[in-house]
C-alpha cells in the first residue's frame, strides 16, 4: 500500500491591518459624534421631544420626570397614567408629589452628610411635544411644591448633526 503523502497547506495569516484601519476610523468618528455632554441625558423611548434652537447642553441631572403618551415616570419608576393627570382638577399630582418630596429630602440629607456638594433641586422634565400644556403645568407645579425649583425642559437640538 502506497503511503499517501498529506500535503500541508501553508497557514493563512490573518491580515489585521485593514481591520484595525476600520476600527480606528469608527472610533474617531464616534468620539467626534458623541460628546461627553450628550451622553449624560438620554431621550425616553415613547415620546418625541420638541425641537429647540436656543437650548443649552445638559449638565449633571439629579432627577428626570418623563411624561409620554401613556405614563408619568419619575426616575424610571412608572407612577400613573398621563390621562389621569389631565382629568384631575387639582394642580398637584399626588403620587408624583409623594416621591418628589421623598427624593428632595434624601437630597438635602446627602448635602448635610457631605455626600453631594449642593442640593440644587434640579429636575429635567421630558414631555412629548404633543402633550397638552395642562399636564405640563400640573407636573411643574408639583415639582415646585416639592422643592424642585430648578426645572429644565429636555429638547432636541435643532440644526445639529452628528
Amino acid at each position, binding site marked *: 500500500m502506497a503511503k499517501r503523502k498529506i500535503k500541508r497547506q501553508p497557514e493563512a495569516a490573518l491580515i489585521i491591518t485593514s481591520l484595525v484601519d476600520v476600527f480606528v476610523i469608527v472610533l474617531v468618528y464616534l468620539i467626534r459624534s458623541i460628546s461627553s455632554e450628550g451622553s449624560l441625558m438620554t*431621550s425616553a423611548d415613547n415620546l418625541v421631544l420638541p425641537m*429647540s434652537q436656543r437650548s*443649552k447642553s*445638559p449638565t449633571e441631572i439629579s432627577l428626570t420626570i418623563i411624561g409620554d403618551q401613556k405614563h408619568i415616570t419619575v426616575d424610571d419608576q412608572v407612577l400613573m397614567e398621563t390621562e389621569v393627570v389631565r382629568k384631575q382638577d387639582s394642580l398637584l399630582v399626588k403620587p408624583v408629589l409623594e416621591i418628589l418630596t421623598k427624593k428632595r429630602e434624601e437630597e438635602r440629607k446627602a448635602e448635610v452628610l457631605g455626600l453631594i456638594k449642593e442640593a440644587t433641586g434640579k429636575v429635567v422634565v421630558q414631555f412629548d411635544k404633543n402633550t397638552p*400644556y*395642562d399636564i405640563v403645568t400640573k407636573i411643574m407645579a408639583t415639582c415646585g411644591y416639592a422643592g424642585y425649583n430648578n*426645572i429644565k425642559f429636555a429638547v432636541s437640538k435643532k440644526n445639529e448633526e452628528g
Partner: protein
Amino acid sequence: MNLFSILVVSVISMAQFEKLGVLELWLPERGQPQANDKPPDIDEALLNLTVIITDKGVTIGAGGGFQPTIYYQEEVEYRSRSDQHVFRKVYVTGEEVKSPTDGKVMSQYERETIMLNSVVKKDSADPGTYQYAAIDPEGNALMDTAGNWYATVPPSGALYRVVGDETLKKMDPRTSAFCKVEKLSAYQEVAKTLEKIHLLYSQRDPLPADVDDVVILADESVIYDKVIQMMDACKSAGFDRVALSLIGGEV
C-alpha cells in the same frame, strides 16, 4: 476588506445622532407671606412683558398696554402610525382628522410638525392673507436693513440679518441658492416684535429690573410644542429669563 472598510464608513456617515439639550425655565422666587407683611409697592418702571398664546393668535402685552395680535393659521403635518403616510392639514379646533389612505382617525400624538403660519388680518373676523418671507437654509426668515421681511430671496450682495443676530451679512450666490420663499412663521414675527421691545427697553436709563424677563401665558389646551417654540422665540429676541403661566392660574 477594502470594500468593507468603505461600506462601514459610508453607513456610519449616513447615521444621524439626536443631540439633546435643555431649555431653562426661570421661576420667580416666592417667600412665605408673613401676617404683618405690607403689599409690595408697584414699580411703574417695570415692563411686565407677557406673551399670550391662544388658538388664533399671539398677543404681546406690557405695563403700558397691548400690541396688535399676531394672527396665525395652524397647519399640522400628520404621520399615520398604521401606514406611515404623511399628510398636511389646516387645524380646526374640535375637527376629527382622518388619514386619506385608510380613513383612520388621527390621534393628537400623530402630529409630526405643527406650523403656525403668520396671517395678516384687519380684525378677528377677516380670514386674512398669508405672509411670505425669504428663509435661509437654517429656517430663519431674512430681514432687510430697515427690519422688514424680504418677500423674495435677496439678490447677491444685498445686506440681510436674522432675528437674534444683529450682524448684517452680505448675500452670496451660494447661500442665495439655498434660500427659498415660504410662509412666514408666527414665531419669527413674534421674535421680531420682541426684539424691537427688548432693544427699546435696554436703552432706558435707569434700566428696568425686568428688562430680560418675559412671561408666557398659555391656555391649558395649548400643545407643549407651541410653548417651547415660543420660549425659543423669546430667548432669540434677548429675553433670557422666561417664566410660564397658565391662563386663569399660576405656575
